[in-house]
């Protein structure tokens, strides 16, 4: 046998996650997308069923394609604090924190979640590949960077009945877990009370080869709780309702942007509270401090738009004349019964100037195009907020 034949070839094209076969078997839509090189569902059945399952029942979403990096060693805390803008020293062990990280100009490289196991071990979970950036960040420090993207697998279990489902699956140890808590509830099975839906939900993490069995275990307990597997389209609707931003949509990850000035800072995205200037130096701190003094160029805002036609991609005008921004993500929210969106406006619009702003929406009515100029209003809080998402212990159903 030749040497080459003994080696596993690098797969060509998109590859299945360990959960692909299970999803393939129940998929009627056969609608797949490439997510970080993996085959990932856009819709498994219909987007409406999947959306309402997130808000009323339980849903499973395959998050194996997420990039996962372990930062381990005596200087792990230093490295993570050098990386992200928030102060991770204030994050307790067994907690997860939403975090952003920037380049030297204060422009967002990516956002994601930081899992703090201990002062010497963290996991970073994000959309973009970050291995070489983490190696550069850790250079000169006593910390090891391990790419766990293909060794740690995960599913996101989201919806109001998920706690009840977990109890039936024998995982009632999650009962006293607060939002953003992280716990190893069984050997090799980590649960974080996190998600991308703004609702009650959990993310379950285990070894790549064990994720199939975990899926089956949840699936077996799920029938009574209306469990459904979902794709990215329904998830995108709920994340907009929750006011969460998406990489490549509401901001352009600066390392992937090829044009000048496409980057946005956390301040421009409205995440001032996640930039902890007082914690000491972190990447981009000086640039962000300067931007804080000089003023930001943009404001990303949550807006409520007149009418019911989704405004994704629409331009925004001041006094119906001057173009001052555009919608980055927009949907009609079935739960809120509102035409909601995230929009980027050129400063000072969106902060100092919030009046007399209009969205120009193009609509096709069976092949005939029409233009609607509708007013917008700014919304401070997430569009969708529900006490059940934070209740501890979660309410049973």
């Amino acid at each position: 046998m030749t040497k080459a034949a003994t080696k596993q070839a690098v797969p060509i094209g998109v590859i299945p996650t360990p959960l692909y076969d299970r999803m393939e078997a129940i998929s009627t839509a056969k609608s797949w997308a490439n997510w970080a090189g993996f085959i990932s569902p856009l819709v498994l059945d219909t987007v409406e069923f999947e959306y309402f399952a997130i808000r009323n029942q339980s849903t499973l979403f395959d998050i194996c394609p997420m990039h996962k990096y372990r930062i381990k060693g005596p200087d792990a805390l230093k490295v993570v604090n050098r990386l992200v803008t928030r102060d991770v020293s204030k994050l307790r062990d067994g907690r997860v924190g939403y975090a952003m990280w920037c380049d030297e100009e204060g422009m967002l490289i990516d956002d994601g979640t930081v899992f703090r196991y201990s002062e010497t071990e963290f996991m970073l979970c994000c959309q973009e590949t970050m291995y070489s950036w983490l190696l550069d960040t850790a250079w000169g420090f006593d910390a090891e960077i391990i790419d766990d993207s293909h060794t740690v697998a995960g599913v996101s279990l989201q919806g109001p009945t998920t706690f009840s489902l977990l109890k039936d699956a024998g995982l009632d140890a999650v009962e006293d877990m607060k939002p953003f808590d992280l716990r190893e509830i069984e050997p090799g099975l980590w649960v974080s009370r996190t998600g991308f839906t703004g609702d009650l939900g959990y993310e379950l993490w285990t070894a790549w080869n064990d994720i199939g069995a975990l899926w089956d275990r949840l699936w077996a307990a799920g029938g009574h709780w209306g469990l459904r597997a979902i794709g990215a389209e329904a998830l995108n609707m709920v994340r907009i309702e929750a006011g969460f931003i998406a990489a490549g949509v509401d901001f352009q990850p600066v390392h992937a942007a090829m044009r000048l000035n496409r980057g946005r800072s956390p301040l421009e995205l409205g995440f001032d509270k996640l930039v902890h200037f007082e914690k000491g130096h972190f990447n981009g701190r000086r640039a962000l401090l300067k931007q804080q003094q000089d003023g930001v160029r943009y404001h990303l805002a949550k807006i409520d738009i007149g009418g019911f036609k989704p405004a994704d991609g629409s331009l925004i005008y001041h006094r119906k004349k001057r173009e001052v921004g555009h919608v980055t993500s927009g949907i009609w929210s079935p739960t809120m019964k509102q035409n909601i969106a995230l929009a980027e406006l050129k400063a000072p619009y969106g902060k100092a100037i919030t009046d007399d702003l209009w969205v120009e929406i193009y609509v096709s009515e069976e092949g005939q195009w029409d233009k609607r100029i509708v007013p917008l209003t700014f919304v401070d809080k997430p569009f969708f907020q529900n006490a059940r998402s934070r209740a501890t212990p979660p309410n049973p159903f």
Partner: protein
Amino acid sequence: MTNSSTYDVVVIGGGHNGLAAAATLAKKGKSVCVIEKSDAMGGMARNVAMGEGVSAPQIAHLLHNLNPKVAKELGLGDLLKGSPLPTTSLSADGNHVVVEGAMVRFADGTTHPDVNAYAKQTAQLRKFAGLLGQLSTKSPPKLDGGLTSMAALGELAGLAKLGLNVKMMGKKDMREFLRVVLTNVYDLVLDEMPDGPLAGMICADAVRGNYVGPRSPGTVFNLMYRLGTGGEVRMPKGGMGAVARAFEAAATKAGCDLRTGSGVARVNVEADKVTGIVLEDGTEIATRAVLSSAAPMATMKMAGIEHFDVEAARRIKNMRCKGTVAKLNLVLKSAPQIEGLSAAQMAGRLLIAPSAETVERSFNPVKYNELPTAPVVEAVIPTLSDPELASGGRHILSAVIQHVPHTPTGGWNDANRQQVIDTVVAQLEAHMPGLSSTIEEAQLLTPSDIEDLTGAPGGHWHHAEMGVDQILTVRPVNGLAHYRFAVGGLYLCGAAAHPGGDVTGVPGRNSAMQLLKDGVLS
């Protein structure tokens, strides 16, 4: 031991740039302390004792490009007295070529056939170089910020002037400038003259101190840049040691405190500002500003990598700084002779670079970490100008050997060190019959030794390769070109900063001016 004292500014490193920075600041009324790790000031410009009664230039042996502005501001005018040294490019056939300014002759005074070509080319390069030279006493132009801020516009003026001046030269010159600026010196020179000692000299000067051969791209720029910052060499009375002493005296006279024998272990930073330093012996000194003539990497580590952006650390880590220059000092029982050279020529700069091709070949072994077989040698005999440097009628021959690897394969040992000495002595002896029998002592400093002695990374003559990717707005690295070194109050003031290497004093002086301009001390 903790012994706290307070200064406005602490300067790390007592080389000529550190001293120039310190003197400039002290003259403006600031309290300044210079910290030198070794036991004496002067850095690469120091003299070293070689046995009883012999004081030889330890590393640098000629005064290259001392900036007249720096000399005037610091009262170092004496160093520029007298005329620049002639350069003699030695030839195996005895037809040595002597260059003095724009004039080229054979050693016997007869006309050199390429005198006009040389004069024309040098004049043009000097003209081009003038465009670059005027930038050196300024902080390098800053390009970020675009045209939207007045501050950025002011910065851009320097570069705009360069652009304007390039255009003002006229279409023909402008085209020529743009044609040659990034090309290699080998082609440039051999377009104008046949290969030989004159072409060899030009090529040797274009690659001096750098990890390049004359066929490497960018070497024309290096030559221009060198001409732009002066291009002359001098031998001050007292040798290079006198240069070190003059800078030291200027600093002392201006009121600086100079401390030797303990380096800086740490620069303390609080709230993104320098607050003080801690010496290796534990002494703590409070200060609002630190100017470091140490290399960027060493300086970054003193302050702590955590205070630098990831990109900055990466760029500093990836800086090109492979030293290629070794230094050989010989103590001789009697003065060496070269047939056909006058006393003034013997006391000048002697070059073994018989052709452009030999200079290129001299670069080959270093690429493979091999020992040189026929390196370019620049030799001077300082005792011919100042007999007091060696007692008992003895002489010193100081040779800069271009293209010696930092560490040859297998490392340095007595045998391969001796091999380098023997190679160079044999090259010299070809022109100086009987030289080897007059050698009393030989001392070789490899790039690795130079790194150990001075802290210059890679033992690099200029602390960092001088190349188009590491000069002007990108020296030492992109984003850190204005002497300001990330942390508030922390500045670079050594050869790794703009405008770079040689004994110009400009990085030190500019850094001090930038500190004052930034208002850190006000």
